[in-house]
């Protein structure tokens, strides 16, 4: 799998989902290259989270889905940490469950939290909890990282910091990332491509490339090109 670094990691062919006879997701087709960072952007109820959960293997679906990935990891909207485990034990959980090898402390240093490894989740701020959650996802060195509005509940400053950190983690680790968000500016900042979903039943109404370079720093947010990308996507979004 390693040598096909620009191969297709993920392909969906008419993937659809119905809840109690009602279509939640209209047949959707797209593919994601290995190492790509894409956003699924849409209003609430557009089925973007459902789509992500289908890719994660958490939901049933109709259609054809191919995931070229030995390992995938998921970051939830709430940090979803086990309150009775320390930060380090939380990060080590995927290794424990799968029997894979990995270094939880190294994963914690990736998110800048090596010093709090012995603390418990109730001793951390919301932003730190989310970093622990990201470290837990990275510990098994996934080739596909799925994030479901991970920063939505955080304050703006923390959210911006985490967006910058996620982008640099992606640059250094090179995994494929699918990032669900309802914020156009977040999608523009973190990803190289945004798929815009319409309201229920969700379908893809735009597949937009974001050409803002690889490295993204905080000052990019005031760049005219960034602002025009954001206003374009906001305009497309229902």
């Amino acid at each position, binding site marked *: 799998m390693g040598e096909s670094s620009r191969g297709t990691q993920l392909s969906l062919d008419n993937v659809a989902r119905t809840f109690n006879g009602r279509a939640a997701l209209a047949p959707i087709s797209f593919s994601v290259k290995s190492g790509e960072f894409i956003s699924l952007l849409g209003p609430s109820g557009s089925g973007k989270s459902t789509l992500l*959960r289908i890719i*994660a*293997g*958490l939901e049933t679906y109709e259609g054809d889905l191919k995931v070229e990935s030995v390992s*995938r*990891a*998921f970051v*939830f*909207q*709430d940090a*979803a940490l*086990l*309150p*009775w485990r320390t930060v380090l034990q939380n990060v080590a*959980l*995927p290794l*424990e*469950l*799968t029997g894979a090898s990995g270094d939880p402390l190294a994963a914690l240093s990736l998110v800048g939290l090596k010093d709090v490894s012995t603390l*418990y*989740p*109730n001793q951390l701020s919301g932003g730190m909890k989310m970093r622990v959650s990201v470290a837990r996802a990275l510990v098994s060195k996934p080739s596909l990282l799925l994030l479901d509005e991970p920063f939505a509940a955080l304050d703006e400053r923390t959210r911006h910091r985490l967006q910058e950190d996620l982008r640099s983690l992606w640059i250094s680790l090179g995994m494929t990332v699918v990032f669900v968000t309802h914020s156009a500016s977040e999608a523009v900042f973190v990803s190289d491509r945004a798929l815009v979903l319409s309201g229920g039943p969700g379908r893809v109404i735009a597949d937009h490339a974001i050409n803002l370079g690889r490295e993204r720093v905080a000052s990019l947010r005031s760049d005219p090109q960034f602002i025009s990308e954001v206003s374009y996507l906001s305009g497309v979004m229902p």
Partner: protein
Amino acid sequence: MKFVWPLIPLILGVALLEALRHFGIVPQYLLPTPEEVLASLRDDRLELWDGFSSTATSSIIALILSGIAGCAIAVLLSLSSVLKRMVYPYAVFFQTVPIIAIAPLLVIWFGFGRPTVIASAFIVSIFPVIASTLLGLESTDPSLVDLFRIYRASAWTRLWKLRIPFAMPQIFSGLRIAAGLSVIGAIVGEFIAGGGLGSVVDAARTQQRIDKVFAAVLLSALLGLMIVAVLNFVSKIALRHWHASAREI
């Protein structure tokens, strides 16, 4: 200050009862004075202590048994919805049968003495453990369930590493309710089967020793409080890392 507030109604209550006695509204033989109760606690201390330790032993054994059996039954019921649908209605039904009505049957089955007392305390205290543990096992955070599914954890691993630890606050709250009930169940059992504070109350009643009845009742309340205090202490330690809301139950 925490201990001062509950003392105020106690002092007011004792003062009110004293006033009722003093003005002859309630006859003397129905209510002892606080001094009489204290005197009984001192003079009958050997008999009261025997009763107290016997009731304490029976209630604690019953509580441990209902804790173990209640959790085990709740785990089984949480594993199979068919089993739950078959068994749970009976658990609810048995809870509504008054223990005082079953107690004579227990004497027939287990004879006079401790086994009947423990059975009586066990029967009344197991239900809250089952109900509360089951609630805890069924309310696991859905994100955490998904997390374990993503890493393909087996049902067994999910149970041990996620659902049981997640249910701990509910398990403790069930045990706290069971603790009070186990003392009640033990004393009801002792009324019928003999022994413990139940017997002391029963004997003192027939001897018109209202002061001794009060002393024994006081001790049984104290026993319930002590068991709950120990449980609170254990649960505080076990849940010390949980969020404040879970710790304050």
